[in-house]
């Protein structure tokens, strides 16, 4: 039996829970058909999240199906963003997928890239430093000093896949116009895996401390807010703390979804909530980092007021 999982027409972190709800209804033994034919746009978060769903579905049983977006501009963009290059290993893809080169264009700072081992993180950091420095400065008005920190944040978020997920994952980095409250250019780092998730990872060392409160939300709080690691090594837990420091300095945002909860450190330009629980269950972890364009009092595009 085949179960349909609809990919939202605007597929990003906001519509991800709708997608997760459809995914969560799947039963063991069902073959999943991820239907993206009506998709009009997907953020990097949506793209790597869809890959994570594909991997999780493939683990459970038959290779899932994917219907590619019908709109030629949309499917072309997904191809240039590197999505189909990764999707080919996970899905049986249906629909017309153009053979295009994975992007070397200004908005796609890093196409969808697999992360399985430390060497992959090195490659990602090297690519970003080569391509992103000028773009971050010209597009976002970021101080050149911010570029190294950007690479650091990217490195640490990718490393968490290698160190904790128990499986591989994906990362993508893109610049675009954030049309919600902010109305500025942003750069988005999205990292996703379909691994064990924060709760399972931290349970052996943290579960007892939280008692009955233990769950996905508590695990995320322990990791992001308290800097807790599953390793007892005193120097652990640096990565997320470092990401928080970097984002605080540049008024950025971090949001992490794992299992049935989502935690966020929300800057003043966003209207998200710090914690959501009781969400539709989704495997692994999905991380979103957003760095906004720096503005002067006169408006966007000027030199940084930092």
């Amino acid at each position, binding site marked *: 039996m085949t179960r349909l999982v609809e990919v939202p027409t605007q597929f990003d972190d906001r519509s991800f829970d709708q997608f997760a709800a459809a995914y969560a209804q799947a039963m063991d033994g069902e073959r999943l058909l991820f239907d993206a034919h009506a998709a009009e746009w997907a953020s990097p978060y949506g793209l790597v999240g869809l890959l994570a769903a594909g991997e999780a579905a493939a683990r459970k049983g038959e290779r899932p199906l994917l219907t590619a977006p019908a709109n030629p501009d949309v499917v072309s963009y997904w191809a240039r963003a590197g999505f189909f290059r990764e999707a080919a290993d996970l899905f049986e893809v249906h629909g017309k997928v153009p053979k295009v080169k994975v992007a070397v264009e200004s908005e796609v700072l890093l196409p969808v890239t697999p992360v399985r081992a430390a060497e992959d993180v090195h490659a990602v950091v090297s690519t970003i430093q080569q391509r992103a420095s000028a773009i971050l400065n010209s597009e976002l008005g970021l101080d050149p000093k911010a570029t190294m920190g950007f690479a650091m944040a990217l490195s640490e978020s990718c490393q968490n896949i290698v160190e904790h997920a128990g499986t591989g994952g994906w990362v993508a980095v893109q610049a675009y116009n954030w049309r919600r409250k902010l109305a500025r250019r942003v750069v988005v780092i999205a990292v996703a895996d379909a691994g064990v998730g924060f709760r399972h990872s931290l349970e052996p060392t943290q579960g007892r401390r939280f008692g009955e409160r233990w769950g996905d939300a508590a695990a995320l709080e322990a990791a992001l807010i308290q800097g807790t690691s599953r390793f007892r090594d005193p*120097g652990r837990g640096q990565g997320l703390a470092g990401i928080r420091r970097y984002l605080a300095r540049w008024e950025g945002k971090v949001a992490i979804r794992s299992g049935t909860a989502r935690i966020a450190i929300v800057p003043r330009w966003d209207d998200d909530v710090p914690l959501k629980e009781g969400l539709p269950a989704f495997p692994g972890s999905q991380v979103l980092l957003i760095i906004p364009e720096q503005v002067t009092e006169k408006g966007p595009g000027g030199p940084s007021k930092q």
Partner: protein
Amino acid sequence: MVQAVLQQAVAGFYTDLVTRPTGRAVRENIERDLLPGTIAVMDFTGVGCLDYSCADEIVAKLVRDKVKVLLLRGLTEAHREAIEPVLAGAGLAVLCERADGALEGLGASEPAPALLDELVERRLAARIPGGSIRLTAA
């Protein structure tokens, strides 16, 4: 002992010091030549990105477990931004040589004066008029 001062060029291993496995490999390579209680110098010239995990694996662990005083050279602002919070969070400190040659503490504020005193006592550094401390020729 002057002979205990070792200078390791970190940039010779990798350009970007990222990920814990890389940090561990670099540190183990350095540690092989270090006796416990050594005063060591590490030159970060040519190192690109340094992430927090590598800062912990290389710098913090050497300070915590192996060297008596660690002096860092060739640090960029970005390197300092990775190293400082890692050390401060662990209550550790190193010395770093500024562009003008003066030595200053990096990391937790409490241990730094003792580190400077250690170098001065061993005549590896000296206080100069104006109050700053610089390495001697030794």
